[in-house]
C-alpha cells in the first residue's frame, strides 16, 4: 500500500528497480569486459608482480588473480605465495 502511494506521488526510492538494474549491469559488465579481454588480467598480474617484488620474493608461477562474485559485490582475489620476505625495502633490488 505504501509502495503504491509512493508510486503515485512519484517518489524514487533507493531500492527502486532502476537502481537494481544499474547495479546488476555494473557487475555483469565488469565480468564481461574482463572475459572479453583476458590480456587486461594478464597485464594486471605483471604489474602486481612488479610492485610486490619490491617488498618480498614471490612464487610467480603460483600467482593466481581472479574475479570473485559474492552476492552483491565483485572482488578481485589474488593468491600470492610468498617465498621470502625482504629485510629492507630497496627498490633497486626489486623485480
Amino acid at each position, binding site marked *: 500500500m505504501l509502495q503504491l502511494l509512493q508510486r503515485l*506521488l*512519484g517518489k*524514487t526510492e533507493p531500492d*527502486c528497480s*532502476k537502481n537494481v538494474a*544499474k547495479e546488476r549491469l*555494473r557487475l555483469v559488465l565488469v565480468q*564481461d*569486459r574482463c572475459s572479453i*579481454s583476458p590480456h587486461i588480467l594478464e597485464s594486471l598480474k605483471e604489474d602486481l608482480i612488479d610492485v610486490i617484488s619490491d617488498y618480498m620474493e614471490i612464487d610467480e608461477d603460483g600467482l593466481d588473480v581472479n574475479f570473485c562474485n559474492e552476492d552483491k559485490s565483485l572482488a578481485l582475489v589474488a593468491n600470492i605465495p610468498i617465498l621470502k620476505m625482504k629485510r629492507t625495502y630497496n627498490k633497486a633490488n626489486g623485480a
Partner: protein
Amino acid sequence: MGEVLVITSGKGGVGKTTTVANVGTGLAKEGHDVVLIDTDIGLRNLDVVLGLENRIVYDIVDVANGSCRLKQALIKDKRFDGLYLLPAAQTKEKTALTTDQMVELCESLKKDFDYVIIDCPAGIEQGFKNAIAGAERAVVLTTPEVAAVRDADRVIGLLEAAGITDPELIINRLRPQMVKHGDMMDIDDIIDILAVRLLGVVPEDELIVVSTNKGEPAVLDNKSRAGEAYRNIIKRIVGEEVPIMNMEINEGIMAFLKKIVGMR
C-alpha cells in the same frame, strides 16, 4: 563519395530494422541519396517495414554471386526518388555472403549514394561480421533494459576491436513515465555505463506499430513522438546540433486531475 553507416545492437528486437527504415526515409526526405542494405539473410524484414515487399526480384546474395548486376537488385522506394533498398536473401544461408563481398558492395554503393545504411542482424556471428565489414561509422541501438545494454556494451567492444571507433548510441523505446517513477534506467544512467556519444533518444510510441502495419515509416508522421525523435537523429547524423527532445508527455485528464488534487 558517401558514408557507410551500420546500425547494430547485438540483442534482437530492440528496433534495428525500424530505426534503419526511419533514418533512411528521413534522410531521403531531406533530399539525400540513400541506399538501405538488409544483411539479415534468412530473416528479411526491412522490405516489409518499408512497404516494398512486393517489388523484390533479386537480392544481396544474387549480387554477390554475380547472378545479377547491382543496379538490378536495388529497389526504388515508392515515396522518395533518392531512396533505394538492397534486400536480404530469404532462402539462403547466412554464410552465402562473405565479408570481402560486403566490403566490395559498400565501396561501389558509396560512389552513387550519400548514405549507405546497413541493417545488421541480431547476434555477433557471421551476419554481424558481414554487416560491419564495409562500415565506417556505427550506430549502436539499445533499449533501457539490462540485457539490451549488456549486449550493446559487447557490440561496442567488438566494433572498436574491428577498427570502428567512437560508435554513437541511440536509446530506443524509452518510457518517460517509468523513468520518472524510477522503474526504468534514464539517459544518463545508460550513457554513464556505456561511455559513448549519444545520437538520440526515441520514446516508446504506439504509432510505430501502426506505421509498421502500413509499411509507412513513422518519421513521415508529424503526430508521432518517435517520428519527431527520428527527425532529430537525422539532423544530428548530417551534422546539425539539436538538443534531445523533452520526453515528458501530456499524461491526459487523470494526471491533470491528480495534479489539481495535489497528488503529484
